[in-house]
């Protein structure tokens, strides 16, 4: 038997024995950003397709969550920075090769757009809303006139935001678990699914709830497909990626991932929604909350497990 012993004199805080540079802030932000992206994409898509009146909640009410989620996410990102006073450097540099730079600029576009979208629908929440200042009224009129282009911007930047949360991680070749291009589409789908779940909770219209249960079912199906292909890809790849996959197939993340993300976050809500679309009566909140919980756990586990996966030499 061949044996190998490895001793390193390095013990840098947060780097050894395993990388531990990102804690709760990054996965929380990836989840909130992804969910906000999902909410905004769905709202924009239904508005562009002229289905505003069929899916009122999704287009006019749920988007009110998006700016809140984005702002909490931005605060989490700011807390994560270790050299906080220099955060503005993000906005005096454009680095096309850096996913984080893309993300910073995308947030710079989508956050104001989300606020504007909410402002245009403020009377759905507060029927007697008055802007008080003339220039605010003029601004509202201006954006009302260009609502369709605004929806397009929201859709496109929503997709970029949703995909980028995955690409941020997949661009790291040093962490074999993250280094798969499936992560972008997987996080986008998971964000859309959480966004659809938000409407499922808020909507009081039976038809709309049915439609969003259907959407969620399809999205969960896509997510399961992507997860299976992610692991198939890992198992057919190099030793470091096989090792990364093994953390989830018998290793230390197996129970957390398959129980919290796949069973509780995908399979059980899918069964509940399927029953709801049939004749059973199931409180819509239940599957929706599980989907949102699963979406959060997915980010949390992938960010933590990815930092444990590495090249050995």
């Amino acid at each position: 038997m061949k044996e190998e012993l490895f001793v390193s004199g390095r013990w840098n805080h947060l780097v050894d024995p395993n990388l531990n540079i990102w804690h709760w802030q990054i996965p929380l932000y990836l989840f909130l950003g992804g969910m906000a992206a999902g909410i905004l994409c769905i709202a924009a898509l239904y508005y562009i397709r002229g289905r505003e009146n069929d899916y009122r909640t999704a287009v006019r009410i749920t988007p009110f969550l998006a700016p809140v989620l984005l702002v909490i996410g931005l605060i989490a990102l700011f807390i994560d920075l270790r050299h906080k006073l220099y955060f503005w450097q993000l906005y005096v540099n454009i680095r096309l090769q850096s996913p984080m730079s893309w993300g910073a600029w995308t947030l710079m576009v989508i956050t104001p757009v989300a606020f504007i979208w909410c402002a245009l629908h403020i009377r759905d929440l507060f029927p007697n809303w008055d802007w008080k200042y003339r220039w605010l009224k003029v601004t509202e009129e201006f954006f009302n006139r260009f609502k369709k282009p605004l929806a397009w911007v929201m859709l496109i930047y929503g997709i970029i935001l949703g995909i980028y949360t995955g690409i941020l991680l997949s661009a790291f070749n040093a962490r074999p678990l993250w280094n798969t291009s499936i992560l972008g589409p997987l996080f986008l789908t998971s964000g859309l699914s959480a966004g659809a779940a938000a409407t499922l909770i808020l909507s009081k219209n039976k038809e709309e709830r049915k439609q969003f249960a259907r959407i969620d079912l399809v999205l969960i199906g896509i997510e399961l497909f992507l997860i299976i292909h992610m692991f198939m890809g890992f198992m057919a790849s190099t030793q470091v990626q096989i090792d990364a996959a093994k953390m989830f197939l018998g290793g230390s993340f197996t129970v957390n991932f398959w129980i919290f993300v796949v069973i509780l976050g995908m399979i059980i809500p899918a069964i509940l929604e399927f029953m709801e679309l049939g004749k059973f009566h199931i409180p819509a909140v239940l599957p929706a909350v599980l989907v949102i919980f699963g979406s959060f756990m997915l980010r949390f586990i992938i960010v933590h497990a990815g930092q444990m996966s590495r090249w050995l030499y």
Partner: protein
Amino acid sequence: MRYAMAVDTKKCVGCSDCVVACQTENNVPIGYCRDWVVETTDGTYPQLEMELRSERCNHCVNAPCVRCCPTGASHFDEGGIVLVKQNKCIGCGACIASCPYDARYPHPKGYVDKCTFCAHRLKEGMLPACVSVCPTRCLYFGDLDDPSSSVSLVLKKRKHKVLIPEAGTNPQLYFLF
């Protein structure tokens, strides 16, 4: 110009003088290090083989840390040295996560820190601190574009390897064996 370093694993005795010299020269905060010594033992008793390596940032040609930096704080300096501009670094940690060698660490002051090949000493015509103190002279440093530099000469003469070439980073820290 292309700065590179070669480490003779046959001459290194693992004394860690390079580590202490770096910490002193660069005011590395206590508990951290920019270079470190790795010891590997391989084989089955009695056929054992030991290798000692003084490791540090590989100053890669295709550096993932420079690529992923959102502000351009991580950059290539003269001679391909990978440096961090402290007043541009936001401390996001992306470069730390991107390094397959885990050569970077978060400095307690907030910015990210790493080996600089002692760029400040090179400017004054001196060698990096680790190279100049090595008691067995197992570290070679110089310009790869200059065929008469000590590192070029030793790489021509000796068998050598780099760490994780399959990561595609094109590292510039060579190990003689």
